[in-house]
């Protein structure tokens, strides 16, 4: 009964005071809109950054050869430590926290040719595990290097998607033959497109991969360029790293605490950092949104005070007719909540519409695709409710504490 009257009066006031109502709601509209947008974009950027970071591989570390910096068992510093495929097998057999490992031989300026298209590219000689470690995933109709390719030292090649495009343009690469420094290789697959924002040797989409055995036979290399190790998801990369230092230290006689004997890039640290950074980033954005909303709420509260002045007499009339304090208060709080709810709903819808339109602007490569998530929305609703209640409460209390005689201005 009272709410119905309030709603009626509210819409009546809104008709009478179009500009004022619009400005009041705008504060809430804008606040809600910015919270939702900031949250959605924050989420989008975070996801896209983490995904791009994962383009390098999940839970992996890259190991380069190094030079000893500590004396060990009478051996001097400055000894080179390089490793072979044999070392990779050794680590694989000994390290308990290791999920996968692949050595990587690297050849630069290799001439790849298909018909009249020629390009100079870097080519890696790797194990089949490389695909999983580095998220080099074969696209539909493709496959990565397998055990038979390895055993038979087959001349097969797996191409990054951009490289495949450069060489084959519109043609279907799989099954075709390319010339690898003049030797024919069969294309077994093309990488599925992926995001990658960090690398140690250029982006995978412009590289090519062949079996390590084939590579070794062609280039007569003894030492591999790098090794990729992957820890179990449950294990810490720190443990895997110390295992690698220990195993390699035993074999090449260096101090396992000598971090320069092997140089290791632990990519999990980057992801951990990114996650923390973007978490903080999101809270920051959310904070800005909340501050905007609170500003809007203060606006609403001010307007409600003005409304209170205007309606003092009316409040007096209602009191004379028997309205209790709670009823007067309820009216004001309800009205404020109504303003907040309408402003908030409009803001939410507007932000949602923007977010729906956003993917068509094709900016997702830089800032990801903004997404409205459940938690964010619930938080927005919660904050809105609080702001509404808080901005309504004080004017409402003032209204309810008026003395009927004062309100009626009878004396």
């Amino acid at each position, binding site marked *: *009964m*009272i709410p119905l*009257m309030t709603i*009626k*009066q509210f819409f*009546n*006031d809104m008709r009478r005071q179009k500009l004022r109502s619009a400005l009041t709601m705008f504060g809430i509209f804008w606040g809600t809109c910015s919270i939702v947008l900031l949250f959605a974009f924050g989420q989008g950027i975070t996801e896209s950054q983490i995904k791009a970071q994962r383009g390098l591989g999940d839970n992996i570390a890259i190991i380069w050869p190094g030079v000893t910096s500590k004396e060990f068992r009478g051996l001097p510093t400055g000894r080179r430590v390089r490793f072979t495929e044999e070392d990779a097998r050794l680590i694989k057999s000994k390290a308990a926290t290791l999920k996968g490992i692949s050595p990587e031989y690297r050849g630069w300026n290799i001439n790849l040719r298909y018909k009249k298209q020629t390009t100079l590219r870097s080519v890696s000689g790797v194990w089949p595990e490389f695909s999983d470690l580095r998220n080099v995933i074969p696209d539909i109709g493709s496959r990565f290097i397998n055990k038979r390719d390895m055993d038979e030292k087959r001349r097969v090649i797996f191409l990054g998607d951009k490289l495949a495009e450069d060489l084959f343009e519109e043609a279907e690469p799989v099954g075709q033959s390319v010339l690898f420094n003049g030797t024919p290789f069969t294309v077994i697959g093309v990488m599925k497109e992926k995001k990658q924002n960090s690398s140690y040797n250029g982006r995978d989409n412009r590289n090519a991969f062949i079996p390590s055995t084939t590579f070794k036979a062609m280039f007569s290399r003894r030492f591999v360029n790098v090794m990729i190790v992957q820890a179990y998801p449950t294990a810490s990369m720190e443990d895997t790293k110390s295992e690698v230092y220990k195993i390699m230290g035993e074999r090449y006689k260096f101090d396992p605490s000598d971090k320069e004997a092997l140089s290791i890039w632990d990519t999990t640290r980057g992801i951990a950092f990114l996650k923390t950074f973007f978490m903080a980033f999101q809270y920051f954005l959310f904070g800005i949104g909340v501050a905007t909303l609170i500003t809007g709420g203060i606006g609403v509260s001010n307007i409600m005070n003005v409304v209170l002045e205007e309606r003092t*007499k*009316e409040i*007096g*009339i*209602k*009191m*004379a*007719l*028997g*309205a*209790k*304090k*709670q*009823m007067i208060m309820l009216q004001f709080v309800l009205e404020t909540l109504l303003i907040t709810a309408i402003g908030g709903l409009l803001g939410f819808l507007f932000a949602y519409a923007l977010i729906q339109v956003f993917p068509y602007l094709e900016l997702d490569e830089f800032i990801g695709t903004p997404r409205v998530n459940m938690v964010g929305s619930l938080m927005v609703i919660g904050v809105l409710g609080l702001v509404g209640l808080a901005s309504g409460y004080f004017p409402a209390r003032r209204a309810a504490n008026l*003395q*009927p*005689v004062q309100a*009626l201005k*009878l*004396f």
Partner: protein
Amino acid sequence: MIRMNQVVKSYTTGKVDFTALKGIDLHIRKGELAAVIGPSGSGKSTLMNIVGCLDIPSSGEYMLEGSDVGQLSSNELAEIRNRKIGFVFQAFNLLPYATAYENVEVPLLFAGAKAKYRRERVIELLSRVGLANKVSNRPTEMSGGEMQRVAIARALANEPDVILADEPTGNLDSKSGGEIVKLFHELWESGKTIIMITHDNNIAATAERVIKLKDGMIDSNGLKARTSA
């Protein structure tokens, strides 16, 4: 019905203390029609506010149907205003955005009456004051006399025992004013207690009893006049 013993009401406005009522002793019986007259500033309105439970005495005792108004909480006072007292103001004091129907419905809403009863009651009241055809008019679409009749219908909504009218004809022309006074007499004849502030001696002359205020005190309470008549 209404009994006041040495009621004093003083206000502090800024640094100045102002005593509007300086010890009022008053007894109004059920079913009386009393007019309150007196010059401006004599305390008529203050007296009305206290009788109507819009304000409470600074000192003294005000008993309304046996309960001491000075001791009641603000919600209990609201309850009394809602159920026992009907107000009619000089300025009508209708809710501007609401129709005649809705204005009359307000006290019923505050009393928590059921929808069906409210509907019947509002129509009945508006018919009684002769406005059955103006149910959905807003105050701006009505004449002063009509507005005051809506206000009277509203005052009667919860069947109060006492109707308090503060210069009910003050904003009306003499014709409408006369109609309103006639309405009050009808109500009085139906058994309501009516207390009416007025400037108009002609209207006061129609009352059963005239209470004259001067400087916050009762100059004559009309009882003597009646006994001598």
